[in-house]
């Protein structure tokens, strides 16, 4: 199988953070056209099973490369840098900012217009997320792995924050 190929190799792409998204999309569709289980519907059961595994591997590679945080973590992993899931950054300034953002999220419900307050917060989180991606690309390209690791931790926090905003939003509308 293709177990020994990296996600980048599967897509024929260079292992960099800023990648050509349309090349990724084009290559992804081409690979699925080849390996999706639907293409194996009339093949033997064994080949169908192999196709499911291959298609799953392609999907996994695609998901990792498409999502900035996962892509960043994967690049560091390839570079031999391990990032334990529970580790936090010790950048004091960023820790302060984290705390303030979290507090605001918790206080959204007490605002006169919670939906609007949440929207503002969501916008801000998105902006920070974009800026941090640019920083990761820069330091990783410069081979500054220590700072890249710090940047990844920041990215992880920002993604989590955005997810929490979404949960709040759903709760606000009282949906399941």
């Amino acid at each position, binding site marked *: *199988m*293709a177990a020994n*190929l990296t996600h980048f*190799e*599967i897509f*024929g792409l260079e292992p960099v953070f800023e990648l050509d998204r349309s*090349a990724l999309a*084009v*290559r992804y*569709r*081409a*690979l*699925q*056209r*080849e*390996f*999706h*289980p*639907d*293409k194996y*519907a*009339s*093949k*033997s*059961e*064994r*080949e169908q099973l*192999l*196709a*499911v*595994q*291959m*298609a*799953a591997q392609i*999907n*996994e590679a*695609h*998901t990792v490369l498409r999502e900035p945080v996962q892509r960043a973590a994967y690049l560091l992993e390839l570079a031999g840098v391990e990032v334990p899931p529970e580790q936090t950054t010790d950048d004091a300034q960023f820790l302060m900012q984290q705390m303030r953002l979290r507090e605001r999220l918790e206080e959204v419900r007490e605002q006169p217009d919670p939906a609007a307050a949440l929207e503002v917060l969501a916008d801000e989180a998105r902006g920070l997320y974009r800026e941090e991606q640019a920083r990761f690309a820069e330091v990783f390209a410069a081979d500054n792995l220590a700072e890249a690791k710090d940047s990844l931790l920041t990215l992880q926090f920002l993604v989590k924050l955005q997810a929490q905003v*979404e949960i709040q939003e*759903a709760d606000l*509308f009282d*949906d399941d």
Partner: protein
Amino acid sequence: MALLQISEPGQSPEPHQRKYAVGIDLGTTNSLVATVRDGSAEAIAVEGDSVILSSAVHYGKDTVTVGAEARARAVQDPYNTILSIKRLMGRGVDDIRRFGDQLPYHFAGSDGGMPAIETAAGPVNPVQVSAEILKTLARRGREALCGGEGGGLDGAVITVPAYFDDAQRQATKDAAKLAGLKVLRLLNEPTAAAVAYGLDQGEEGVIAVYDLGGGTFDISILRLSRGVFEVLSTGGDTALGGDDFDRCIATWLAAQAGLGADLDAATQRRLLGCACHAKESLTSNEQVALRYGDWQGVLDQVTLAELLDPLIDKTLRACKRALRDANIGVDAVQEVVLVGGSTRTLRVRERVAQYFDRPPHAALDPDQVVAIGAALQADVLVGNKSSEALLLLDVIPLSLGIETMGGLTEKLITRNTTIPVSKAQEFTTFKDGQTAMAIHVVQGEREWVSHCRSLARFELRGIPPMVAGAAHIRVTFQVDADGLLSVTAVEKSSGVSADITVKPSYGLEDKVIARMLQESYTHAAEDIALRALREAQVEAERTLESLLAALRENGAQLLEERELNQLERAMEALRLAHNGADATEIRRRMETLNTLSEPFAARRMDASIKRAMQGHRLDEFDQ
């Protein structure tokens, strides 16, 4: 040359012989079957000239009736007439209790956590009821395709709401199995609708499919690009649909007519019938005059809008979530497609057009569009059509996770991940000498296990005894292209693969299905034997055919003379068994052949991968 000798003895069908495949829309209120003939897909007449089969099953003492005739008995015989069974598919007894007051049935105990409904013909579970509907559809499909000839269907694509969870999908597949159908694929209804539209119109870009049926709501956001349908996100509500519109109107009616709240089953049914009629009438009239007993009154569009808006709001909030999951704004949506009978309601069209800021597509009959899309996909999967034309990349609608300490959920596969997908997770023991471990798989978005749906409990046994924390048990969760989950586990340090006992929380175990299948052959033992033989023969034909095609393609390159001869002998043995009358012998030969051809399958896959990785520059993929 050795290869040429393999080809003939006539028992296996010609490789390019046309196959019989159908697409089935198994709906809450109505069901349809469609097929591709002379290059175009069309629904097949199932009741007289009508292509719509009412999803109603009536159980008499000795007879089962399906369709309009069954529905007509709902008022006089509510307890034996099963309607909207789709709502109960894959549900547990507790779920049923929650909408219990809306269901006029008598529930008997349960079948593996699944509710059973007491009828004149004895207790029946939702899988069995659905199987009756599927059997009727399959029979009509067979008659239309093969005439009265003996041949059967080669396969069916059956549609499910995109938002169906694993238990609901599994229940649907079980029902098909019980009806004797080979399921080529479970296809999400909105994706099927997009296929029906996309192929007809050659669209490119982002499409939103708004699918409001009798009992379920789905929203899917898809990107269409050169015949590839990529589902970006999906969302919805498995218990929201036209039935709720009816109930809403019926409640209003009951209040207007001064009826109490405590109504018997027959009155409820009458009120619902009246409400449904009013709703349908309002799709083409400004208002409708109503009469119930001594009471008479009028329902107009404004009042209807007031009644339905809270329900429609719910659907639009799901649209918003789906767009956010897809990471696109509402203005990026180029086309909106309406599916499902409930989108005939004018207020729905109005609100959807408003939200997406563009008139929705409704050119195809909203009742037929799903079945037609399924038929097109079935035609491709069964091999009648070059598969270059169409590829569907669908997603898993709800996150899959496991229970961790303290009743919390840990997500392993998040919603809207493209399928197939597999994820591995490592577990360890927390006691010295521990040899077994229980894993609880749940589906849903919430943090607490109790707020998610319980899918299955797995027990890993046979872990070699070690000190606490020393075992590394790697559990792999795989979701296939039907959206169905399977689990395997292996202890890494010893290489022992742990036995897994799957106990579906609300499903049927394979052996229960086998038992029900047997019971459903109403006649003598020979009938069962005959069917088992026929099934084994069909499978043998399929096995031989696919292997033959593979050998022709690259057997000479990938196999050595000796391996080739071995395979040929095993194929010949299977062919001989196929011509005999012993199902067990056929299965035994088939197993031998399958094991023998495994390395060939692996080499073929490796060759495909090599081909895909080498020699292609990116610009070539753009063709």
